[in-house]
């Protein structure tokens, strides 16, 4: 298979990380496409949950918002928002939380709240929504985002969602019993936290991507794993599934970008 974009590679690599028996809390933004490609390829029985209360949803097109009507119409059940956050998330029923990020640091801490000082912001972003507790209550966290020096930064301005803090056993010291970020999928590479330091380390480069390209779009000094792999290129099925999903979505939403 040749001829795919780095965006498509990112979505497909992210989809592959999900298992058929996962119960996945789908964050707003890039994760939604990856989660639905997983459902439409190797993980048909995956349970996708959106924070609007839809459990086990199977939308034909990607939702524009986390509360689109089709999420409810195709769900196994739709519960209230407090039930979602109390019984299902806090209750420990979710295996994977899949999040996007405006800013991310090397330890998987995420900022979607504010650029600059909180009280005198340079840019006021929408805020965390469900993310602070998704990050602490899901069994583990996958993050997906495009690489850029503005996105992958040495130091985030605000801890919207706690990842591994300053690294090491920071989660344990805070009393967190979940794994936190275990995977970062970008448009260039797959990253996993170092077992000791918890710093995200590149374990696999997407086809045709160089170490230099990864470094140039990252705000910290990148570490590469010893046995650096190459991400398998998208299969025809994966690519067809993603493109068909995007085409259905564009037709349904009149060409709008989806969240």
């Amino acid at each position: 298979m040749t001829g795919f974009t780095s965006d498509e590679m990112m979505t497909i690599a992210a989809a592959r990380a999900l298992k058929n028996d996962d119960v996945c809390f789908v964050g707003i933004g890039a994760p939604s496409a990856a989660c639905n490609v997983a459902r439409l390829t190797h993980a048909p029985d995956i349970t996708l949950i959106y924070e609007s209360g839809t459990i086990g949803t199977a939308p034909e097109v990607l939702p524009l918002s986390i509360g689109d009507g089709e999420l409810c119409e195709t769900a196994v059940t739709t519960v209230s928002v407090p039930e979602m956050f109390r019984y299902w998330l806090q209750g420990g029923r979710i295996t994977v939380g899949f999040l996007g990020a405006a800013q991310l640091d090397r330890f998987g801490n995420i900022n979607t709240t504010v650029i600059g000082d909180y009280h005198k912001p340079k840019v006021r972003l929408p805020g965390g929504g469900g993310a602070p507790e998704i990050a602490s209550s899901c069994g583990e966290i996958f993050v997906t985002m495009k690489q850029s020096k503005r996105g992958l930064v040495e130091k985030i301005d605000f801890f919207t969602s706690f990842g591994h803090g300053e690294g090491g056993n920071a989660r344990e010291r805070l009393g967190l019993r979940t794994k936190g970020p275990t995977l970062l999928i970008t448009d260039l590479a797959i990253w996993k936290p170092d077992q000791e330091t918890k710093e995200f380390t590149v374990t696999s480069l997407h086809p045709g991507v160089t170490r230099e390209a990864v470094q140039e779009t990252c705000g910290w000094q990148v570490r590469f794993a010893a046995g650096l792999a190459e991400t398998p290129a998208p299969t025809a099925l994966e690519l067809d599934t993603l493109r068909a999903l995007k085409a259905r979505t564009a037709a349904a939403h009149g060409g709008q970008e989806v969240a």
Partner: protein
Amino acid sequence: MATFMSLAEAVSGNLFDGDTAAFEGFTHLIPHAAAHEAIRQGRRDLTLVRMTPDIVYDQMIGMGMARKLVFSYAGNPGVGLLRRLRDAVENGWPHPVEIEEHSHAAMANAYEAGAAGLPCAVFRGYKGASLARVNPNIRSVACPFTGEELAAVPSIRPDVTFIHAQKANRRGDVLIEGIIGIQKEAVLAARRAVVTVEEVVEDFAGVHPNACVLPHWTVKAIAVVPGGAHPSYAHGYYARDNRSYLEWDAIAADREAFTAWMKQNVLDKDADVFAGRVAALRAAR
């Protein structure tokens, strides 16, 4: 005891300057018509509460109605940021707005605690999150049995909550279907509740016994406003008007464009315009 009345009467009799007011809706069933009526009546100095303030809160803040905003995600879903809110927070236009920011889990718990008559909500949250450092209403308590440190936030007790729902029956019971969000908790947490509905039916015969129904004695006023959630949607009635959400971004980007749009589409209109706004979306639902 629910009384049927016009939207103008329902708003003027239940929303007052200085109130803490929630216009709730989690993407679905957002009470736009009620908020527009509040804008026309020129209420001021409000503490506006909502988990997901979107374009209708952008409108109310841009019109200078809010003293404070309590929220957990302030964005235009699928589009981006709220430009009027940003202008208020970053530049103080038309006047500064105080913000009290939470996570969804915190606000959902706080509404539920309000409905349950509790002074605060306790939950497992905010671990390592910076919000706990900038919002003094985020505190912690130790579980008296295990010693576990848990987050605590004050319950939400609005003076008045506005919601939109699909149906009321003749008696004034209210039926909410689809993504029910936080509507039931927001109504039961409030001192007064005002509901706009798509239609009134004789009774709820045939409705599932576990359906989300608010009995008539939990609601003060009901106004029939077909299309009253537009550009949000009403499950079973009409689809979300995604184009309006997209167009809002450009309107809200400019103070003059915003002011002109509000005059033309809100101040010079009344609640009757909503039915027409969803006419084309009924088929698409």
